[in-house]
């Protein structure tokens, strides 16, 4: 909201500036005298140079037609395709061809006996600049316009402001547009005209980023900083403004990273919390279920690559049900084979699930190797949008956050609105009584274990675009998610959510100041102290025993 309004202001300001430029442009619309221009090109070196210089100076005001037309002979000079018969310029298709077209009329014209146009070192520079400016303004291909920008940037002092403003307004390619804006800004910042410089400083300060900060700070070394009080005041104010904005932007970025970390933690911990609340079992293999989810995502990607390469981009979406089901099935199998026998001995179930995790890690290691899996990033999770200063909302993290939100809704729906959820809540509250009332507690256990495992699989899908995927990846998150369960309380999704947000944010908040290790130490000590006050965690599940 805050960043949005600033951004709107900025847009309005830029729009107003552009409008002014465009208005002056159209008001003093200029017409090129094509005949005189062609004749000047065939004059001596000085006349050629001044013709190129003039067209550069007037480029912002000339019509697009004139620009495109003038670009032809200028390019011809550089490529040695322009020859002169007296004062009449002829453009050849290739250097040394016997016939060409008249530059002015476009009619075919023999070029026998024509002399090449004269090009000195100084004139070459002027022609190159003019050629670049014209290409930037009128070339149909992006590459040609980019090359034009580069040529114009090399002799930036000779290029009038209006050229960049016009080029930026007309540019359709986003990357090039940004590049033009950057060059224009640099031109304005180093302009000899003080008014223009002040306006440029204002403009740079209006679009804050650490890059803008370094560009403004560089100006402190400028002679005008010491000499001109107005300039100094404007620059200092600009720097202060950018510094504030960058600090806010960095703060937002930290919160955003914390949110995405918390999302992963929540997805890993939600299943743990449900299972723990229901059966008193902590599943040490939960991290490996995350890994299975990520590997299932990889499997979907590879399958799509084989079957339907055109749909490859959709693999992350398709992986959602696949990873959920695959992990849920593994979970149900482990419950049926191992955990079923251990419900009265929860400490032994720790060892058993650890053995399962050891087994799964090594199975995957033998089957797939230890290297990180390569994922192709679908377009919808690569890149991001710069929201405010240096704060970029990256799509892959937003994907994880959205995914976690979806998981939260799904989990709440399953627990609150399905018969299975009703049974899970009943058995969590009082297993014996639920059993007496005819609820098949063992079956509920199995389904709940499958559901909790499936949630971990979903975490694996969300992780795939963000973190490296390898057999050991589960260990990275597992201890943090245990802490989330302990802090949040047993068997509550809401408690898990709050705890995940807290642990995720605290980790990310402390990290920049004291390092990742200190963050973990503080979180652990904080949790131990918190348990002194509320041993049951943030949200104590209702139990009737």
């Amino acid at each position, binding site marked *: 909201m805050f960043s949005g309004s600033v951004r709107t202001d900025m847009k309005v300001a830029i729009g107003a500036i552009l409008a002014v430029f465009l208005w002056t442009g159209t008001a003093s619309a200029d017409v090129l005298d094509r005949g005189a221009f062609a004749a000047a090109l065939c004059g001596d070196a000085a006349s050629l140079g001044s013709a190129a210089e003039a067209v550069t100076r007037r480029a912002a005001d000339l019509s697009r037609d004139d620009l495109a037309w003038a670009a032809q002979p200028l390019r011809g000079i550089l490529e040695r395709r322009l020859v002169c018969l007296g004062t009449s310029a002829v453009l050849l298709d290739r250097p040394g061809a016997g016939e060409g077209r008249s530059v002015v009329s476009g009619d075919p014209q023999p070029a026998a006996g024509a002399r090449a146009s004269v090009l000195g070192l100084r004139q070459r520079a002027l022609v190159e600049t003019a050629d670049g400016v014209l290409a930037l303004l009128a070339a149909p291909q992006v590459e040609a316009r980019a090359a034009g920008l580069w040529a114009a940037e090399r002799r930036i002092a000779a290029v009038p402001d209006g050229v960049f403003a016009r080029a930026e307004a007309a540019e359709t390619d986003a990357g090039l547009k940004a590049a033009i804006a950057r060059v224009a800004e640099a031109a304005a910042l180093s302009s000899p005209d003080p008014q223009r410089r002040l306006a440029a400083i204002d403009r740079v300060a209006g679009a804050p980023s650490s890059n803008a900060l370094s560009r403004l700070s560089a100006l402190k070394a400028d002679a005008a900083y010491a000499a001109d009080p107005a300039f100094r005041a404007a620059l200092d104010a600009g720097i202060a403004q950018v510094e504030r904005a960058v600090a806010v932007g960095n703060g937002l970025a930290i919160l955003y990273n914390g949110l995405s970390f918390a999302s992963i933690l929540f997805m890993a911990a939600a299943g743990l919390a449900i299972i*723990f609340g229901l059966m*008193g*079992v*902590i599943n*040490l293999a939960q991290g490996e279920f995350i890994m299975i989810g990520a590997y299932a995502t990889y499997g979907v990607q590879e399958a799509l690559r084989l079957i339907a390469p055109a749909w490859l981009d959709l693999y992350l979406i398709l992986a959602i049900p696949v990873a959920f089901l695959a992990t849920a099935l593994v979970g149900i199998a482990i419950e049926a084979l*191992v955990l079923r*026998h*251990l419900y*009265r*001995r*929860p*400490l*032994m179930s*720790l*060892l*058993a699930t*650890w*053995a*399962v995790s*050891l*087994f799964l*890690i*090594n199975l995957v290691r*033998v089957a797939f190797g230890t290297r990180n899996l390569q994922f192709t990033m679908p377009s919808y999770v690569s890149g991001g949008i710069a929201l405010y200063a240096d704060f970029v909302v990256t799509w892959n993290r937003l994907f994880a956050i959205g995914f976690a939100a979806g998981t939260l809704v799904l989990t709440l729906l399953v627990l609150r609105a399905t018969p299975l959820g009703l049974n899970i809540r009943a058995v969590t509250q009082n297993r014996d009584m639920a059993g007496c009332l005819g609820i098949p507690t063992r079956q509920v256990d199995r389904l709940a274990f499958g559901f909790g495992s499936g949630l971990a699989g979903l975490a694996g899908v969300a992780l795939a675009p963000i973190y490296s995927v390898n057999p050991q990846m589960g*260990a990275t998150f597992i*201890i943090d998610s*245990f*802490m989330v*369960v*302990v802090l949040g309380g047993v068997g509550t999704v809401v408690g898990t959510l709050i705890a995940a947000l807290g642990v995720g944010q605290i980790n990310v908040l402390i990290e920049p100041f004291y*390092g*990742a*290790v200190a963050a*973990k*130490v503080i979180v*652990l000590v904080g*949790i*131990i*102290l918190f*348990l*002194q006050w509320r*041993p049951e965690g943030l949200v104590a599940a209702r139990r009737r025993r």
Partner: protein
Amino acid sequence: MNAVTGSLAATRAAAPMPVQRRYDAGLLGLVAALVGVALILGLAKPETYLVNAIGQLAALAILAVSLDLVWGYLGILSLGHGLFFAIGGYVCAMHLSAHAYAVTGTAPDVMQFMGWASLPFYWTGMTSAPYALVLAIALAVLVAFLFGWASFRSRVNGVYFSIISQALVYVAMLLMFRNDTGFGGNNGMTSFTLLFGFAMGAPGTVLTLTIVTILALAAVLIGCGRLVASGIGRQMLACRDDETRLRTLGYGTTALKLKIWCLSAAIAALAGILYVPQVGIINPRVLAPDLSLEIAVWVAIGGMGRLSGAVIGAVLVNALKFWLTAAMPEAWPFILSGLVLLVVLVLPNGLLDLGRLKPTWLSRGMPR
């Protein structure tokens, strides 16, 4: 805070019930066997490699006994016992480094890695072996006390306690992986040259160290055996089986658990002290959560709730590990996980149950 319960417990202690002392024949036999092994080693002087391996096994067995004391007898499964082991090990390594520095003048690795001119202040006095020994035990007990007190008084127990203790050892590992702590960072400490002035790798030193470790194991077994056979041992079992009832009967379970927990930490630190000179290195990997979990695996495989079981489990699993990680490293994790599942599902009391095989689904409600 527990004035009432404490005095009640005191009354009970003053008027002892007829405690039936269980002289564990297996335990006595094991102690006799250990002393025998020590004698044979001392007389036969076998290859240094073998002697060293036996010594390491004995140190790990002490570690297993320390965990069995709290898990098998008190029902507290610590997944962070590697922390106390590491405290003993690190302090021992500091003593060895400082001792060699004082005698030979070669700067310890820690100083060389960091380019320090002198050792940090907390290395002061490390040249003195008695000081290092006392410090190691005291530090382990202090950490155990703080963590145990905070946990037990807020009645954190069972699986909760296990995973918090795991987080503790994990955080300690991250901390020790930092290079600026003065403990060698991820390289740890190694290349010790002298032990009490004797060359580290010399056959005589290795043999002596091994015999000392075996005798220490025997002493720990005797001490713990007496403890668990005493009235306190009875309380421990009662606390394991039903803490609420024991508390209701007027015993201060928090104090009981805290005492045994600290004792266990001290024994684990002792194991670390004896282990490090034998392997010649310590680094943060001893703090990996997996290692702490493996200690519980040794105990579970050998048979928890019996001190001899812990020793047998530690020796068997580690001997197997020494052999298999060299012979077929790929297969070892599968064998280990298979062993754990086998023991957990089929032999709830570990290998000592092999004699009277009784599947768990017939015997639910075994001691946790």
